[in-house]
């Protein structure tokens, strides 16, 4: 029975086109980022002004940019930046948001719950991009500040989803059983609630991850993200803007990199949701 159930999960995962395609795209970019630590076609800190703005060729598969840097290498190293920013921003959101959500759910209906949720609403009410601009304007543009700005807006997202997931769990009998066993709400939250909202968090984490990549690209595009010489997809796009009419490859490839990565993550998120969704797995009843 156990084996059967597991194979059916694997089988479902394999049948899930979203998950496969999304996972593959994500893997490509994760792979590119990892590979860039070991090998890149060209050093992205070395400028080669003589070879600037060259279209794709055998020497430079995706061409060169306005300083003669290799665009493939820039995209590979840029993937590192995007992924690092998104991962840490999602991490900040989870580390702060999940406990808040668990706490609010454990004290559901109380003043504390109300304060946490209203606080969430308030953060949501702030225009995130504007605040990100303000944070980076105040503390200087950098990848770190971009992370903080994006991370702050991830907190209420995770708090909210954790709370709503936890609330349905709190009405379940196994929570009652744990309470009968004398366990306190903190312990129940971590022992019973957290593992059961993990699916939700993974799915949401994937989505926020992709949003983080888009946000980083947007911030870098307006010059508030990672600073040179660290390559970043958004800044590559910003740099390429004035060249777009005669060297479209400079804008095309980083744009596609963002598009495909975000697409991959979103597809994967959808696929995971399908995989985890109890509605589709109600075989047992």
């Amino acid at each position, binding site marked *: 029975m156990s084996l059967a159930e597991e194979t059916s999960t694997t089988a479902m995962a394999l049948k899930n086109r979203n998950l496969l395609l999304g996972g593959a795209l994500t893997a490509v970019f994760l792979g590119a980022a990892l590979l860039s630590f070991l090998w890149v076609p060209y050093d992205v800190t070395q400028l080669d002004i003589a070879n600037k703005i060259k279209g794709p060729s055998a020497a430079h598969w995706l061409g060169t940019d306005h300083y003669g840097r290799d665009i493939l290498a820039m995209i590979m190293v840029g993937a590192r930046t995007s992924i690092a920013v998104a991962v840490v921003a999602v991490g900040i959101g989870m580390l702060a948001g999940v406990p808040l959500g668990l706490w609010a759910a454990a004290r559901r209906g109380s003043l504390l719950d109300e304060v946490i949720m*209203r606080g969430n*609403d*308030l953060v*949501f*009410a*702030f*225009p995130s*991009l*504007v*605040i990100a*601009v*303000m944070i980076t*304007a*105040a503390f200087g543009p950098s990848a770190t500040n971009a992370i903080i700005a994006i991370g702050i807006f991830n907190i209420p997202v995770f708090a909210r989803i954790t709370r709503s997931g936890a609330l349905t769990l709190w009405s379940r009998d196994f929570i009652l059983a744990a309470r009968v066993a004398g366990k306190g709400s903190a312990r129940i939250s971590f022992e019973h609630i957290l593992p059961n909202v993990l699916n939700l968090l993974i799915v949401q984490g994937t989505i926020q991850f*992709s949003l983080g990549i*888009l946000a980083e*690209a*947007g911030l870098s*595009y*307006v010059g508030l993200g990672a600073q040179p010489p660290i390559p970043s997809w*958004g800044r590559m*796009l910003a740099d390429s*803007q004035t060249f*777009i*009419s005669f060297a*479209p490859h400079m*804008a095309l490839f980083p*744009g596609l990199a*963002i*598009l*495909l990565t*975000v*697409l991959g993550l*979103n*597809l994967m998120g*959808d696929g995971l949701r399908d995989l985890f969704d109890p*509605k589709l797995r109600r075989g047992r009843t």
Partner: protein
Amino acid sequence: MLRYTLTRFLSLCLSLAVASVVIFFAIEVLPGDPASIMLGVNAQPDTLAALRTELGLDQPMVARYFAWVTGLLQGDFGISYTYRTPVAQMIADRLAVSLPLALFSLALTVVIAFPVGIWAASRRGSVSDVSIMGLTQLGVAIPNFWFAMLMVLVFAINLQWFSAGGFAGWDAGLLAVLKSLTLPAIALALPQASILARVMRSALLDTLSEDFIRTARAKGLTRRQALWRHALRNALIPVLTIIGMQFSFLLAGGIIIENVFYLPGLGRLIFQAISARDLVVVESVVMLLVFAVILVNFLVELAYAAVDPRLRAR
């Protein structure tokens, strides 16, 4: 209903009060002295001091907060440090661009998303459903400023159908306004429409799996009738929530798109104001945006009650 409305309204006021404190003090800690930025490279210390007094920057922070809030309540947003004109007027001028743009793109969003979402939900699993959903995935993933760049290249520079940017002003006529707002509105609407279409579809599918749809079908309603008469309104609550969030996003989120199309909107105003440390403007615009979001949320919640009799009863 009255109670529901009033409690919502009270929470709206409270949120605004908290937001005003957060905004004011957060912005006041921004490094950079507005006076020295205005006077530039060769300013003399005595000149600077004179200007600081003139701008009221020598007052203590708390006093300035209360002056600011009192002003806001009376509709007086203060005087811009850099432009030396009333902030309210500046915001009104910028809203004349940002609001139509937000509404235009929201309208586009809804006009695209509703039929697409309903179509996909009613043909769940079909080839058209799968391909439409694939397209919306692309729409969600595409960075809108990149899309805007490509559109400018094709439609403004190569085909010259639309303006590459700028805003001629309402005096120039509706055609001119449409010419300058169409591309930005499309760039803003595309990802939002994709998101909304997906929400619409999944909300509909959720509703379609509810028991009362089965009841309706047992009465003899066709699948289509059940969808239009019973599912759609029930699916509206999540959709309304998203529309509310999107409007707020569109109002503020044009910041990058306004830069691409050099539209003199709120987003660019705030960008300029932050660079120039024009704190009064930054505070007021952020406050306005937060107010808009909170107000829209309030209206959305009232709209829930209009849709759902269970909330009306409260």
